[in-house]
């Protein structure tokens, strides 16, 4: 299986889209060599603005450009887009329903060596809290390409969450539709829900569980808002046991959203795997996921416990 970078896929796709959409404008805040928006900049220097290290101003300018008819992509690391610039995103972008696509990279622990100051684990929570904000975390590079196309076609603000590490191209030939989950593998005993790059980990756990006769379904939820309620309820009804896994805080991420859906519609046994009220630290990305319990071992352990 190919192992590819979501960031490179993003940069390449933007550069392609520039051809078709003449009013596409891309903004960055002095991280374009890391987010890969520079690829668009090289091709369309007149529509690319590397604004400096001023994320708040970038979000405000993004809103202004969008309210003047431009199709705007604004990129930086997840931490700075949603942390530093939160109020600008809320007031100037979301409240105005400005057509701004906030595409961030380096989300979560797999950002690695830069450490806790840069490891954003609360962004899904922050962005889902904003009325009208669509929130998407693709699993791999091929899905990233489709997501970038899809958000270009939709009207209104959205948040797309990408990671730093290269990941296996699992969803090479799967469809993407905003608001729809993807049944990656079917199963009868337990439903494992994942978002973003942890899909890989969920699939490893499924293989492990198979060895001991446990049949796990793996469901990828690229869109966290609006969430695919129907798929969650259907799968919970089928397996009766639900596990969620994500590279995010336990508060307000995919696990929380699924807990809400189940709690209101079909209470079922649920175990959430996420970062439990901690800041991250420096280290290699995958090594950190292990240390913080975002691992196939943890999924397997919980699944076995649930099986009794």
């Amino acid at each position: 299986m190919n192992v590819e970078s979501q960031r490179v896929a993003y940069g390449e796709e933007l550069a392609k889209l520039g051809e078709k959409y003449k009013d596409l404008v891309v903004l960055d805040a002095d991280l374009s060599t890391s987010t890969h928006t520079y690829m668009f900049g090289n091709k369309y220097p007149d529509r690319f603005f590397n604004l400096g290290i001023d994320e708040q101003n970038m979000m405000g300018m993004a809103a202004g450009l969008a309210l003047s008819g431009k199709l705007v992509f604004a990129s930086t690391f997840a931490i700075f887009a949603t942390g530093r610039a939160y109020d600008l995103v809320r007031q100037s972008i979301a409240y105005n329903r400005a057509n701004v696509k906030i595409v961030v990279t380096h989300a979560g622990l797999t950002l690695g060596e830069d450490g806790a100051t840069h490891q954003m684990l609360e962004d899904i929570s922050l962005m889902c809290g904003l009325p009208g904000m669509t929130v998407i975390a693709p699993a791999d590079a091929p899905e990233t390409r489709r997501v970038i196309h899809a958000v270009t076609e939709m009207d209104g603000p959205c948040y797309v969450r990408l990671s730093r590490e290269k990941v296996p191209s699992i969803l090479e030939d799967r469809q993407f539709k905003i608001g729809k989950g993807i049944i990656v593998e079917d199963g009868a005993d337990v439903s494992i829900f994942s978002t973003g790059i942890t899909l890989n980990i969920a699939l490893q756990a499924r293989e492990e569980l198979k060895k001991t006769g446990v049949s796990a379904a793996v469901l990828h939820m690229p869109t966290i808002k609006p969430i695919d309620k129907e798929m969650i309820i259907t799968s919970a009804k089928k397996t009766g046991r639900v596990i969620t896994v994500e590279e995010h805080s336990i508060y307000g991420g995919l696990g929380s959203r699924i807990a809400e859906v189940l709690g209101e519609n079909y209470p079922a046994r649920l175990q959430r795997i996420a970062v439990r009220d901690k800041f991250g630290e420096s280290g290699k990305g995958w090594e950190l996921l292990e240390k913080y319990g975002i691992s196939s071992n943890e999924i397997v352990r919980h699944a076995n416990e649930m099986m009794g």
Partner: protein
Amino acid sequence: MQKPTSKPTTHNALSATELKTLRLKANEIRRWVIEMVFSAKSGHIGGALSIADVLSVLYFKELNVDPKNPNWDGRDRLALSKGHASAAYYAALALRGFFPKEELLTFRKINSKLQGHAYKGVPGVDVSTGSLGQGICVSLGMALAAKMDGKKHRVYAIIGDGECDEGSVWEAALNAPFRKLDNLTVILDRNEFQNDGSMYNILDTGSMEDKFSSFGWNVISIDGHDMQQIVDAIEEAREAKSKPSVIVAHTIKGKGVSFMENNGSFHGKPPTEDEFEKAIAELDEARSKI
């Protein structure tokens, strides 16, 4: 390239021995930066090398700190607002005796104290930083607290010039003169580079001297690699009454390793093995000539 707009007056000339010590320490800091980033295969070299001379003067001449008692209440405080230059900061602290030098090679590795960006869990570090445009605000708070309590220590902040793109820097710049925080010295590392390269291709911020001056600061403009000028500036700032001081230190990003100087690609990229060896050889050669 910008030049210093003036030159501070020398009141205390460094002796030949003092000058030699400061240069040797700066050289050691640089060497460790290269070792640490190479070992971690990750980290920020350029902006660490540009402040090595400033750190040498701070830790080996000017700062009133006690490595045996890092939390001593009377110590001078420092916020490395450009927290990505952590490698140079940790090296300076270890060389000053805050913790064993051997620990430096755990930099950026899992389970280490030496987090990627300046981290308060490291002895000698007063505040965690890394998200640009925050350390300077924290330094204002520390200076204000010292004023309120009638304490005599000074507060220092080291900020990047790219960092000055952040609005919060200017919120602090408005506040400090109004509150007459003359116990505060901000050192601005004016290397004219940021993450994506030269500021002239991203956001040309013009004269920092003029900007801070119009905001009401005592402005001192220096060559940030001239030990005597760094000493003069820090001492002049200490004498300033009723105004905070900013030292605009004109520096070279990557200073001390020829192929890293003014080279945007060494902002956040580790050296290859070949580059590593060349860099160490250059620094050792420079050391033998001090």
